């Protein structure tokens, strides 16, 4: 299903989606972030390059309470499970790289061991994507990692900017429902609209982007470069913060803690929070030994997880090329440069004895 939406009528479409809580990128305190929007806002536009944080937190929030625990009056332990039951939520303006990121989260929390909390949130979420006519940032590199500026993965609807209007394309049955609900606002798309959208797509694909060199060879080369001294050198300026992982659309490592509110009587909650492989205690053993004691090993882990281990497990890169970790890194650590340098060094090495 393809329709046309007049740019000024985005608010009207949102108003027609009364069953949904709608989130869209809005600028507040100098930041683009997904915030609830009310229907009918005439001023509603999608003017963002990309949001500071991806929409990851909608299905995988930074803090998730699994259950609470306390003591009954007769001293017995009691657990109260808290599986979330959110109403339908719709996220507008998701860039294709972030849509791609959602498919990775779906893999991790849905395939081998479905995560009840993630599933409960994900089941009532829908995403309306916005294709990138030109890269929103100079550090975009989606085309190097299997993505596309017009990618449709993970999205229910894709909107394509045609200057004064959007071409709106349903990608899933949920997407069709959303567009049917907007019947009064969305109009029939003509052949010329489709032709224009196709032109935009080709132009976007032709737009130069920064690039990971020879991506198909990267996993193998990273494997060969595991022991490289480059890791430590490239991590030299690293300060060990969690920006790169917390802004990443695909990083999904977490920690589980019991937050004890009171010791007597005992009460508290078991909580899952995001964790980061860049933190000093991420791999800290109870013995005090830390197998990834230095920043080089942690950088290697972050990069290898995305370009090697995840590839080995799922056949795709875990990185979607959004460029957030490059833009926000306080000291300029650049995942493209890191991958390229380590891979190039490994490629130049003589092959191991076979």
């Amino acid at each position: 299903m393809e329709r046309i939406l007049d740019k000024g009528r985005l608010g009207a479409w949102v108003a027609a989606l009364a069953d949904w809580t709608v989130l869209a990128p809005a600028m507040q305190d100098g930041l683009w972030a997904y915030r609830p929007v009310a229907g009918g806002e005439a001023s509603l536009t999608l003017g963002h390059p990309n949001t500071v944080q991806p929409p990851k937190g909608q299905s995988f929030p930074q803090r998730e309470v699994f259950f609470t625990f306390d003591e009954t009056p007769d001293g017995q332990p009691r657990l109260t499970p808290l599986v979330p039951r959110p109403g339908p939520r719709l996220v507008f303006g998701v860039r294709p790289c972030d849509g791609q990121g959602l498919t990775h989260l779906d893999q991790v929390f849905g395939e081998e061991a479905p995560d009840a909390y993630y599933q409960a949130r994900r089941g009532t979420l829908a995403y309306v994507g916005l294709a990138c006519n030109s890269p929103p940032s100079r550090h975009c590199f989606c085309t190097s990692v299997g993505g596309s500026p017009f990618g449709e993965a993970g999205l229910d609807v894709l909107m394509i900017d045609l200057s004064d209007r959007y071409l709106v394309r349903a990608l899933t049955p949920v997407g069709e429902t959303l567009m049917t609900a907007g019947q009064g606002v969305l109009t029939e798309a003509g052949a010329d609209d489709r032709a224009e959208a196709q032109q935009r797509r080709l132009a976007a694909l032709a737009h130069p982007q920064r690039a990971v060199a020879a991506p198909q060879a990267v996993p193998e080369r990273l494997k060969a470069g595991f022991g490289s001294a480059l890791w430590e050198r490239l991590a030299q300026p690293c300060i060990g913060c969690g920006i790169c992982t917390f802004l990443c659309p695909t990083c999904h490592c977490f920690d589980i803690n019991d937050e004890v509110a009171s010791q007597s009587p005992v009460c508290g909650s078991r909580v899952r929070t995001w964790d980061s492989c860049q933190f000093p205690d991420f791999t800290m053993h109870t013995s005090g030994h830390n197998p990834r004691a230095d920043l080089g090993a942690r950088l290697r882990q972050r990069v290898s997880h995305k370009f090697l281990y995840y590839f080995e497990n799922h056949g795709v890169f875990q990185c979607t090329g959004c460029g957030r970790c490059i833009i926000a890194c306080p000291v300029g650590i650049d995942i493209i440069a890191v991958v390229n340098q380590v891979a190039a060094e490994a490629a130049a090495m003589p092959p191991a004895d076979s």
Partner: protein
Amino acid sequence: MAEDPKTPYEPRIVAFLCKWCSSAGSDLAGVSRIQYPANATPITVPCSGSVSPQYILTAFRKGADGVLVSGCHLGDCHYLEGNYLARRKLFLVKELLEFIGLEPERFRMSWVSAAEGAKFAQVITDFVADLRPLGPQDKLQGQRP
């Protein structure tokens, strides 16, 4: 907070009392049978200078409506200068709490000697009276599970 005026809000106070003076002062108030509100939970510490800002923040975060730190009068510190150091450090705590918008009445310091049972009772009485109209402190308090 819509409180019934007939049953005023009973604030919860965490009082860090130095072992040598203020804690003894509170004992004296007790043995002298001075009547004062029972809103304060005393925590005896070795010295007012040993009170880390972390204790104060944690008390507020665990739901205290007011926090009191009380030590020996200047010059009387068992460790000679602990209360001088406390005064400087906790002045900054007070300023910072006010800076982020916590009501200034919620954090208090006093010097109460072992002989000042009546003063201790007065300090608590005044504190409770000042905290009552503010109602519960819900700014720094964490979520209850």
